[in-house]
């Protein structure tokens, strides 16, 4: 295929291919446009992943549907049952939220290290969770927390559990005419603690490995439920189900965590690349899983 060049490109360097631009002011309008383009339109939220891949011509959508003009898609609120995060909430808004710091520290752990501060001012929580990149940090957090994603299509609204959402690299359960509206996370309970631990070469780089851990302890101090999920060591963010099962009913101590970390290692399939050989990444899964579980446990006991 002959590459397409225009005069503009020679003058300006790296620019995206041409597209039709829509800025709907309602959710209904947005999903109608997505439906009309039948998979050839992309949703533009923060654009911090989409615009770079368009500039590299890895994506050439016919149309962009900019959802930033839709009111009430950016919010962080807690109700009787859930923490609810709107799709266009900026990643840095997680950092700035006292509610998140105090009650859902796993999300501020992750948000503090996503890309860099400038990217976090544009990049959205909805974009991070729905892009389908196994190297994004928030999907593992959502798996560990047992989040649900509320999505709308022209025919209605449905709720998708995070564990059913990630199907393959850049492939999610989201249909091409569906828009992610909100992320719903089970409301934090007494005895709950969580953490996200990430290894990266430098700020702004993709993670080498990331691990998200969420523990809920009984009043007697044993583990009532556990969530453990991994970033960048498989085709999608991975939920370490065996590890979670192993932890339930145990004391939140090193012995149980060691075994869980080994279970987590077993489900990974990292690839060797500039960020390290596969064996190294697999070894780091164990190390980071231990750190994440210990930190989650410390927080469940009221520590920082």
């Amino acid at each position, binding site marked *: 295929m002959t590459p397409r060049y225009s005069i503009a490109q020679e003058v300006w360097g790296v620019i995206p291919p041409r597209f039709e631009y829509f800025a709907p002011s309602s959710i209904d309008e947005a999903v109608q446009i997505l439906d009309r383009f039948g998979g050839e339109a992309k949703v533009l939220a923060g654009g911090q992943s989409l615009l770079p891949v368009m500039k590299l011509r890895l994506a050439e959508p016919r149309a962009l549907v900019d959802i930033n003009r839709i009111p009430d898609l950016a919010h962080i609120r807690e109700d009787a049952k859930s923490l609810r995060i709107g799709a266009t909430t900026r990643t840095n808004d997680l950092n700035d939220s006292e509610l998140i710091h105090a009650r859902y520290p796993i999300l501020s752990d992750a948000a503090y290290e996503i890309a860099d*501060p400038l990217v976090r*001012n544009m990049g959205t929580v909805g974009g991070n969770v729905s892009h389908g990149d196994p190297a994004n940090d928030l999907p593992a957090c959502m798996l560990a927390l047992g989040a649900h994603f509320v999505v709308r299509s022209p025919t209605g609204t449905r709720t998708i559990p995070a564990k059913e959402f990630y199907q393959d690299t850049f492939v999610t359960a989201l249909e091409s005419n569906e828009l992610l509206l909100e992320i719903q996370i089970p409301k934090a309970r007494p005895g709950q603690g969580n953490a996200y631990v990430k290894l990266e070469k430098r700020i*702004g780089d993709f993670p080498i490995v990331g691990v998200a851990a969420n523990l809920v302890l009984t009043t007697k101090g044993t583990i009532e439920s556990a969530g453990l999920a991994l970033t960048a060591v498989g085709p999608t963010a991975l939920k370490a189900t065996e590890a979670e099962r192993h932890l339930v009913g145990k004391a939140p101590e090193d012995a149980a965590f060691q075994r869980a970390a080994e279970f987590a290692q077993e489900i990974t399939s990292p690839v060797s690349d500039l960020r390290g050989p596969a064996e190294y990444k697999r070894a780091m899964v164990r190390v980071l899983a231990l750190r994440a579980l210990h930190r989650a446990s410390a927080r469940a006991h009221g520590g920082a």
Partner: protein
Amino acid sequence: MHELVLAEMPSAGDEETGPFVNVHVTVNGAPRSATVETRTLLVHFLRENLSLTGTHIGCDTTNCGACTILLDGKAVKSCTILAVQADGRELRTVEGLETDGKLHPIQEGFIEEHGLQCGFCTPGMMMCSVALLQKNPHPTEEQIRRAISGNLCRCTGYVNIVKAIQHAANKMAGPSGGGRP
């Protein structure tokens, strides 16, 4: 639908351009507008359409932060935002730092502390710093280093940049600084 005026194609018949859109923004307090392709990036809009070349293009790939500007007061990389996304919004660029012939404290800081060598990253560094100091007038060194972690400098080793930002913070907090944003 957001009030978006689709523009006539200036060069009708040219299949290699368009579609076009009118973009209205406020830059450094003044209303500005231009008709551009929908795919026009904000940094190109500023430089090519508005002739505000103080905002630099470094890497084109969301890495270096040379193109940092303030969008509704927040520091962002203007190479990774479409001009049309800024429609109706407020922008601040390095050209807007100096007022009435008087340099902004951050500009003075970069001069006093020798915060630049080649100067290429400097506009982005300064805009990022202005956003930091607006939000956190008394940042620690760690907070400064975190705040500028999306802005790359290949000359200074960052030590003098950090000092420049501390200089500005002290000046803006001081009795004569007046806390100018």
